[in-house]
């Protein structure tokens, strides 16, 4: 029973890692650059929601606050791509990496100034309640995390498979030059990808802040999510989610069964093992070009 309980908590945590990892992979696939500020975007998204919803700030109804925060973060991420990232077009990928790391610092600093460094919790309608299934405790917050992740993943799946814009996004990430030749507006598409990554980051942030507490340093969770993306095979969306779940589940298990301290290194240990055994990740999407 203990193990089942751990499993539930792990899955809920893993969903959040998975959503942040999803943001990493989306941007990597579209622009071949890694956005190391993804975790900090999650943190900012959470704080914006908190500002909308919490009583001591604006106290908007929860649903409206969430939707507003998602829209604002989508817009901010879109602008970030247009104003900052696009200027590095044609520069080495390294430049984008450094830029996004720096961006993470800036975001963390701003969040500290505006919202303070103390952990704060998002006030949600589902806080503190739990289902009791034969002794197994499933918090409303955990249930919401799992359901929201499932809904978001399924809608992203349909967006990428069924809509014209979604397929064009896939096309642009698979062969940018050919996408240009087809008349697909590649630059606009990469801005839109950033917007989508901003949305997944915000949803992850909301779920994170609803389950626990958020402070400006919470964005460092992005590093674990990065490990999750590598485990899944950087470039595979289902892989990112699976990687997140693996890390989420292993962490509490290691805490329970292994000596203290081991649980912190588990995500990276798994990442190393995967890199040695399957260098392309668990769900590699690699294809050699035929001549």
């Amino acid at each position, binding site marked *: 029973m203990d193990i089942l309980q751990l499993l539930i908590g792990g899955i809920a945590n893993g969903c959040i890692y998975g959503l942040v990892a999803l943001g990493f992979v989306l941007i990597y696939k579209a622009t071949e650059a890694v956005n190391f500020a993804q975790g900090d975007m999650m943190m900012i998204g959470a704080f914006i929601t908190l500002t909308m919803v919490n009583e001591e700030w604006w106290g908007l109804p929860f649903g409206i606050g969430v939707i507003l925060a998602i829209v604002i973060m989508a817009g901010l991420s879109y602008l970030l791509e247009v104003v900052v990232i696009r200027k590095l077009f044609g520069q080495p990928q390294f430049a984008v990496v450094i830029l996004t790391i720096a961006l993470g610092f800036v975001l963390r600093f701003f969040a500290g100034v505006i919202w303070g460094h103390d952990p704060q919790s998002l006030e949600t309608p589902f806080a503190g309640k739990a289902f009791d299934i034969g002794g197994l405790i499933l918090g409303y917050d955990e249930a919401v995390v799992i359901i929201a992740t499932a809904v978001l993943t399924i809608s992203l799946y349909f967006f990428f498979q069924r809509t*014209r814009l979604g*397929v*064009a996004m*896939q*096309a642009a990430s*698979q*062969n940018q*030059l*050919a*996408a*240009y*030749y*087809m*008349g*697909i*507006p*590649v630059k606009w598409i990469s801005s839109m990808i950033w917007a989508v990554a901003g949305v997944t980051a915000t949803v992850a942030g909301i779920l994170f802040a609803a389950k626990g507490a958020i402070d400006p340093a919470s964005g460092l969770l992005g590093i674990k999510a990065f490990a999750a993306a590598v485990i899944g095979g950087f470039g595979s969306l289902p892989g990112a989610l699976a990687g997140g779940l693996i890390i989420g589940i292993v962490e509490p298990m290691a805490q329970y069964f292994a000596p203290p301290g081991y649980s912190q290194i588990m995500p990276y240990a798994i990442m190393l093992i995967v890199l040695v055994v399957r260098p392309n990740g668990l769900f590699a*999407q690699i*294809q050699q*070009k*035929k*001549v």
Partner: protein
Amino acid sequence: MNAPAPVLSMKNIETFYGPIMAIRGVSIEVPKGQIVTILGANGAGKTTLMKTVSGVMDPEKGQVVLEGQEIQGKDPDHIVRAGVAHVPEGREVFPFLTVHENLMMGAYTRKDRENIADDIDMVFEYFPILKERRDQQAGTMSGGQQQMLAIGRGLMAKPKVMLLDEPSLGLSPLLVQEIFAIIKRLNAEQSVTMMLVEQNANVALKAAHYGYVLEIGRIVMAGEAKQLLASQDIQEFYLGQTGESQRGQKRWKRKKTWR
């Protein structure tokens, strides 16, 4: 040249790769409903010329005129919308999309959504293998099939002029014959205007109406495809036929007439 008005014309195009001048003042006309081929060896500037037309590269000087509109220096998506479809060298299909999705991407810029399904059927008629592989990932198909898909994808844009960059690249002689037969049929039956870049001069000149020879960024020869096929220079330097000399040996020092 006694031909219909040009759909596409280039006037004194000069294109650079950084400091290197790849196209040195080229003028070409593509008349409506015809196939115009541009021949040349590696590095002659054929692909650069194509990229200049489709807007992936911008010329420093000169004009690209499509039906009276200047399109040089515009973004590629604008030029596709204006009616130029580029079938790139080396296929460049979207490897993880299905055949059907690839074709749909070819039609990305089109406004008349209701006609797209008909055009997909048209493409399937010319390339029956694509219909069979409709839901297969494009990257898993053979080179010849990918080339067919690339041409079909170009057709889906309903272009005023289609740029074909080396459709014979890396294909067996038999497949080259097959693809060029379809190119000729498309031109005759659907009256698709084409600008065809090729290294395989023999095949290209047999399919085309008019031809240009490009060497290190300049046009060195132009004429009706039949004339070019018969020309001694073309035969020797592009078709690899050696005429008998007086001593019964190949004369290595023979000069090209344009040098």
